[in-house]
């Protein structure tokens, strides 16, 4: 026998010696690997998300928007309904930050008069008069987050007016109204999505997991709802809201109407996901070891679809915000005194007004930016939730 064949036989013997040992090791490795896999999955998602610059920017913008909405009443110089009639339809003012080389923000004074021919108000700035912008200034009282009475504003002026985005026909500061309006515009989507999520997640997971005639029924209902074009259906439903309802009631009614269509999408997506998961080994294992359906759904299926749920919720935000602003813009959604970006845009409906005072379009840009940010974020989250594709 040759030298190399001896070695070869020797290796075979080594394999046999270790095969018993290996089986125990393999077992141990499998359980620890699984654990490592579960934790590393979230880390991988996070790593992938962080690398996506637009998604991170979108996320930061959204965080900022909600922070501003939370402290809106403090941030703005005026309250929602504060009228300064002598300054109606005032164009946005220019803020000067430096005076004689020193940081000292100020605006120039405004003189208003009426054009004798057109009877329109015309404004001229008065370069002689500098009005310094003061920070943490006392102003109109308000309730922070609707709870804590306060009267300190982030910035403001002691005389004249500071108006970053101009004023409307009643002399109300657009900047203040847009910022305070964000509270409703941004939460209506959130509440709407939350509501869709509750209905959609429950029905979607249920129909995916149990199947049978209930699944069939749910799918038919979804099909029927989805065969309506959304905007006209929303229009018809919101038009049916009684005009004597209180603002709060209208607000919730609108979220309900919005989620009436929203949940179908969520339910469809989750059902598909659950259908795939149902066949996975870990669900089978749980079922074989006698876990109840409730246990399997709450301990296995919901956590497993969690990343999916986050993605879907983020991606449904834009359509909610869009729908609310479109409906309010048409005068069918929220009504004053409730103020959302869509409600603010009602003033822009009149073309003659809009052409004379184009800054009334400002709230629309906020709608666009928030939708853009949500789209960026949602897109990044979607990519991250699927960490194995490049």
């Amino acid at each position, binding site marked *: 026998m*040759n030298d*190399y*064949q001896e*070695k*070869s036989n020797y*290796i*075979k013997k*080594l*394999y046999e*010696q*270790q*095969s018993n040992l*290996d089986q125990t*090791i*393999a077992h141990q490795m499998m359980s620890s690997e699984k654990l490592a896999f579960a934790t590393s999955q979230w880390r991988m998602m996070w790593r992938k998300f962080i*690398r996506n610059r637009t998604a991170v920017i979108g996320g930061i913008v959204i965080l900022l928007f909600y922070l501003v909405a939370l402290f809106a009443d403090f941030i703005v110089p005026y309250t929602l309904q504060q009228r300064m009639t002598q300054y109606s339809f005032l164009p946005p003012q220019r803020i000067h930050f430096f005076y004689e080389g020193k940081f000292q923000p100020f605006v120039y004074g405004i003189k208003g008069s009426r054009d004798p021919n057109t009877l329109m108000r015309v404004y001229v700035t008065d370069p002689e008069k500098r009005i310094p912008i003061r920070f943490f200034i006392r102003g109109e009282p308000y309730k922070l987050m609707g709870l804590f009475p306060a009267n300190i504003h982030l910035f403001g002026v002691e005389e004249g007016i500071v108006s970053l985005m101009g004023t409307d026909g009643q002399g109300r500061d657009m900047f203040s109204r847009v910022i305070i309006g964000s509270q409703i515009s941004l939460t209506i989507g959130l509440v709407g999505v939350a509501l869709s999520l509750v209905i959609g997640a429950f029905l979607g997971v249920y129909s995916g997991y149990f199947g049978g005639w209930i699944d069939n029924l749910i799918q038919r209902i979804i099909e029927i709802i989805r065969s309506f074009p959304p905007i006209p259906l929303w229009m018809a439903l919101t038009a049916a809201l009684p005009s004597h309802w209180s603002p709060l009631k209208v607000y919730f009614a609108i979220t309900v109407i919005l989620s009436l269509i929203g949940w179908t999408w969520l339910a469809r997506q989750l059902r598909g996901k659950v259908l795939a998961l149902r066949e996975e080994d870990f669900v089978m294992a749980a079922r074989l070891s006698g876990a109840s359906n409730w246990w399997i759904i709450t301990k296995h299926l919901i956590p497993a679809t969690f990343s999916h749920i986050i993605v879907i919720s983020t991606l449904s935000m834009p359509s909610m915000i869009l729908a609310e602003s479109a409906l309010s813009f048409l005068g069918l959604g929220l009504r004053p005194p409730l103020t959302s970006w869509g409600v603010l845009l009602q003033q822009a409906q009149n073309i003659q007004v809009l052409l004379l005072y184009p800054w009334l379009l400002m709230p629309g840009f906020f709608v666009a930016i928030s939708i853009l940010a949500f789209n960026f974020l949602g897109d990044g989250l979607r990519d991250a939730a699927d960490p194995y594709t*490049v």
Partner: protein
Amino acid sequence: MKENEQYLLKINNLKTYFYTLDGIVRAVEGVSLSIKPGKTIGLVGESGCGKSVTAHSILRLLPLKTCKIIEGEILFQRQNNHEIIDLTKVDPQGSLIRSIRGKEIAMIFQEPMTSLSPVYTVGNQIIEAILLHNQIEYPEAREHAISMLKSVGLGMAESIIDEYPHRLSGGQRQRVMIAMALSCNPSLLIADEPTTALDVTIQAQIMELLKSLQKQFNMAVLIITHNLGVIAEMADEIVVMYLGRIVEKGSLEQVFEKPLHPYTIGLIKSIPIIGNQTKKRLAPIPGSVPDPLAVIEGCAFRLRCPAYKQKECTGHKESPMVEVEPGHYVSCLLYS
């Protein structure tokens, strides 16, 4: 030159790397092998060992942006004037490589279900290849396609030619793929896991078919597989790859009867033997292929090697390729 002449294809020290966001994947790390005209080589290894990348490197079918052949040469002898060209030097989208693809080197793939476009009839897809490489008219090409379908054992060739792929079974589709590949009389057929996705009985039929067609068309075949059993019947020579490197090569008898490398020994032990009545479990090679991104110092197989685990070998460096008997090479520290 003289030495090259007896080879149809000769790969020297090929290195193909992928550049991913997470780092460089050294998919092929210095592979050398050669194929003689009319012979069959089996390229064996687990998934991820670089065997498919090697094959795709030959036809330059790798993604242009993320993948690069950084070293080595692939010498191929052309059909008409026996001119030898280095395929690593040609433009991967140029007309030269296109005149070789499908015409001189053909390829069939693992997934017969997805290898054919579902929206064109099989005839359309075969005839297209024939028309591309031959100066003939459509009716003649169609005749040729039908005769090719017959020669791969598809009885109803006249009706199958007008069928869409989804109406055929997996075995039928793989036969269609083979017919398409052989339609231009290539001198080399690369079969990338040709039977992996098929039922066991169909697997045997397809291998049988390949074997007889090889004789009929007198072509060389490079079969890539993770299953040693598949090529036991057919290959003249076997090359075993692990992590982008060749660990052992030799004739069929040499590798099967006298395997040297611990990895080859493990692979052979994992083949089920039909008729073996003992209740012994098949022994898998413990562990799995390491992270492709990791740069491994020393012996790449170390972590799965019984000799290393039982402290019989230090695995501290890469082993050179040694020829232990004529034509039988191994790269393992135990033998050097």
